[in-house]
């Protein structure tokens, strides 16, 4: 189900899903989205939260880029780059998994 072979960069048609080990939710005391996992906490900034909220196994990377471009209008190229970079970093950290 998940990629355990050598990781490749995200592709437009890839779908990502939150690692089921992680709990993702809004935390009012931090005024931020957080990822909670066994004995760990990650506080996410707004864009990181925007991206992970959309890693639902249905949206493709292209869908995700489109939505983020609408949400952060003005510099589509930078948004695209940011999404691809974040997805790669998040996958490397184990927070999200690419669906086969």
């Amino acid at each position, binding site marked *: 189900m998940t990629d355990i072979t050598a990781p490749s960069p995200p592709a437009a048609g890839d779908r990502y899903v939150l690692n089921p*080990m992680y709990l993702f939710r809004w935390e009012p005391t931090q005024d931020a989205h957080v990822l909670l996992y066994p*004995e760990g*906490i990650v506080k996410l900034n707004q864009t990181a939260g925007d991206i992970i909220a959309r890693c639902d196994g249905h949206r493709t990377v292209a869908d995700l880029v489109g939505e983020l471009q609408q949400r952060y209008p003005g510099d589509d190229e930078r948004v695209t780059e940011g999404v691809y970079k974040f997805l790669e*970093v998040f996958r490397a950290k184990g927070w999200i998994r690419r669906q086969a």
Partner: protein
Amino acid sequence: MPKDGSVVRLDGQGKPLWLVLELTYRCPLKCPWCSNPVDYARDGEAELSTAEWKRVMREGRELGALQLGFTGGEPLLRDDLEELVADASALGYYTNLITSGVGLTEERLAALKAAGLNQIQLSLQSSDRELTDTLVGARAFDLKLKVAHQIKAQGFPMVLNVPVFRHNIGQVADILALAEQIGVDYLEFANIQYYNWAMVNRDELLPTREQIAAAEREVQAARERLGDRMTIYFVIPDYYEGRPKACMNGWGSIHLTIAPDGAAMPCQEARIIQGLEFPTVRDNSLAWLWNESPTFEKFRGDAWMSPTCRSCDEKEKDFGGCRCQAFLMTGDAANTDPACSRSPHHHLIGEAIARAHAPGRKVQPLVMRNDGNSRRLAQGGQGGGGAGTGCGSGAARVEVDHV
């Protein structure tokens, strides 16, 4: 959009992000590296009641706590564990159960799942039945394996915690194979930290530098082989690092532990430090204990630091190391942690290693954690006590990221 996914440390903004409840010091096992106080068996205050623990959890959440650990002793010895887990879930905590597995049944697992428990950390001491049972002083190996499979069958994320010391450090490869077979999500090899019972038994438990290096090579090979399937932590023993651990991300920074009698502590071991008072949640609000009590204020910031630490360019990184270790080895909790190579007391670490591995040293029997030994050690002046996770992993791994 931010430029990249760089990670910086989150300081907690003064909030006790981690709340650890030591529900009881009672335990069916007798592990000789236990991080509970050596004098746990002395007459003391009764354990907090269900209602008192609930109040602690509510006040902790109000202070911004996110992670909640149920530990002991063996927390399953509390009949109200399921009730407390349900309450914690409703409050919005991520709930961790830290257990030996003794007392965990299909029924209790199902009840804990229904109560909203998020994850279970199970301890395992060896891949060998006989050695496990000898080390923990009970027939536990078969039960632990059975429970491990049941935990996975219930769909819990699972951390297998392996305290590492001289007797089991050669079994890393076998333990990895066992963990793989069980389907463990996180495997934590935690070189034990030398406080309390582990300190009593240090000469017998401390591995050699070569043993640690060999174990680490096995872990690295497994990481390459297993990829994303299992996350493997290897908690380095600070005795061999030359750098002190950033203990608890700093004293009174993000971590708050409540002992069975309600004493509030910045870490599970802090009662070791003589001269500090540990007021309880019975007499005080959690907000006062965290924000204002002199004990929590004592080692915040850098005013308390020795010149060695205050002038050090790494003080924001390791906060001077561990206050408890500084006290245990130098007699002054404000000293630089002797695990630091810049500490004027660093030679004490080298001497401890040399003593544990002196040629011709006579092997002593392990002093098991039990009531008789506890009373004997209490009379012998060992201790003031501390408190702990009961698995010897201490507080070495605390992860808080900010992206």
